[in-house]
């Protein structure tokens, strides 16, 4: 082969591999026959569940699944992420048994059985060094629409604001836009990122940045020594405790959704997620568990 062609192929291959990996990371789980239940008594639970969806819910679900599996050794629970939308579409196509959806179910999604197992709050975060503790709804609206571009108007600091926003399709973004009654094209951001962790890292390294992240993720980062702080929203402290008592307004539901069918394993797992045993785990992730 001529050099040019070899080069050309190598270049193609590199891009191809890159894209291929990206695609593989978000492709559908194998559609194997997993709905085999060997017994109908809950004492002898066995079989496999596939759960896909929101990356906010996936880590806590994985922990819950691990505990559940240790209780019922004949069961296997496979948790995969890919966003709330994927959770819905996978359940709709029967690829997954349970979908993880980190928002309220829409009207078009009433075909599913929702199972609200926890609540997550979204908090505005800034760098620890900023002399600001509270932020109002109007301030957030102005900041994210580019009407306030300078810390001067908030704290008196002589430095420009760095507004961190999320990429289209993230459920944190949807909840944020809904609460503040904004449309995505109205947003004027300086940085757009994907997940909570990235937002936290950027704010920790940039004293002039402002972002919104899941309260659970923020509390965890602060525990790990991150130099961020959570702002109170209209005077209400952003904490797991306030979430638990439904005092913090900027929040979202964490739902499991599934089809209306009689799968005893699925029912057993969903019940488990709202049992007393599951609560410490859910709290550990910074979410407020639902009590049934």
């Amino acid at each position, binding site marked *: 082969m001529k050099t040019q062609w070899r080069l050309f*192929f190598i270049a193609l291959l590199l*891009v191809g591999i*890159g*894209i291929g990996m*990206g695609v593989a990371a978000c492709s559908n789980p194998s559609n194997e026959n997993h709905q085999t239940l060997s017994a109908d008594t809950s004492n002898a639970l066995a079989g496999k569940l596939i759960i896909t969806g929101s990356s906010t819910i996936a880590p806590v679900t994985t922990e819950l699944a691990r505990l559940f599996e240790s209780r019922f050794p004949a069961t296997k629970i496979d948790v995969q992420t890919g966003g709330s939308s994927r959770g819905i*579409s996978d359940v709709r196509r029967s690829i997954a048994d349970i979908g993880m959806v980190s928002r309220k179910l829409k009207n078009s999604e009433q075909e599913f059985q929702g199972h609200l197992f926890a609540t997550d709050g979204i908090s505005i975060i800034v760098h620890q060094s900023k002399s600001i503790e509270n932020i109002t709804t109007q301030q957030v609206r102005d900041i994210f629409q580019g009407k306030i571009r300078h810390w001067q108007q908030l704290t008196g600091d002589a430095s420009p604001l760095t507004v961190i926003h999320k990429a289209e399709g993230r459920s944190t973004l949807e909840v944020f836009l809904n609460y503040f009654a904004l449309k995505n*094209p109205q947003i004027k951001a300086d940085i*757009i990122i994907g997940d909570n962790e990235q937002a936290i890292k950027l704010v920790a390294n940039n004293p002039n940045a402002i972002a919104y992240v899941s309260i659970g993720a923020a509390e965890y980062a602060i525990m790990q020594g991150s130099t961020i702080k959570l702002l109170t929203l209209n005077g209400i402290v952003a904490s797991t405790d306030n979430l638990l008592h439904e005092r913090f307004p900027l929040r979202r539901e964490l739902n499991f959704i599934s089809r209306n069918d009689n799968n005893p394993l699925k029912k057993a797992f969903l019940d488990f997620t709202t049992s007393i045993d599951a609560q410490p785990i859910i709290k550990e992730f910074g979410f407020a568990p639902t009590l049934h």
Partner: protein
Amino acid sequence: MPPRCIDNLFLRFIQLVSLVSIVSLLFIIFFLVKESYLIVQEKPILTVFTDPAWHPLDGQFLLLPMMVGSLLIMLGAMLIALPIGLLTAILCRYYAPRWFATIIQRLMEVFAGIPAVVYGFWGVMVIVPAIAAWQAPGTSLLAGILVLTFIVTPGVTIISYHNLSQVNQTLLHSAIALGLSRYNIIRHIIFPEVKHGLITATTLQSGRAIGETLAVLMVCGNVVQLPGSVFEPIRTLTSNIALEMAYAMDTHRSALFLSGLLLLLIVLVLAFIAESMQKPKAESQ
């Protein structure tokens, strides 16, 4: 087994392997085209240049700023990395004492082996705040170019060094025997000899630069816009895919595959440019 048989088997094996790689390549292209088809069906392909903005959930699919972003950080990084890499290689090969050259060589090999995401972290912790202190917000085209420069420079240096080592030794000796200075030897004898290899190095590393995703995503700010200066944030085609693919559905998802396809086309064009740059040399011989 008779050697002839082994030879035959080996040939078959090589043919099989190359067939597999070509077929999988075609498969990837086919897959990209198939997945992009949905968006092309709904909107004319030119909308990626003419739509007012990138709001895929509201049916606006402007990809132009991301194509420009990808090209800009690649060009910027290569413009810095190429001279640095080449000069480092020349320094190590012809000027520096051997121990120094060995240290640099080993270092470059280590740097080339570090995963890009590590450079990304480093960019977030060091480069972005440094730029932010000067021109907010820090996450910018410049940050992307700098991080990418660090990612591709080791490769450029290693390939250049390798090329320099392959310069015809007798030719080199005859230049030395004519009492030529090192500068003139490098300029008149070595550089023309390695030009070909440098184009190869550039093409390969450009491919790596434009394909780089995570590190770029971390430091570029990812705002979809045509940057007015190097201090403004940009989004690349690869970042776009990585940021949104996990949550994308339907036409949104299809538009992301289309950005993959566009990336492929850009790489193709680059490869052809590299090819046409190599031609004149081939003809003169």
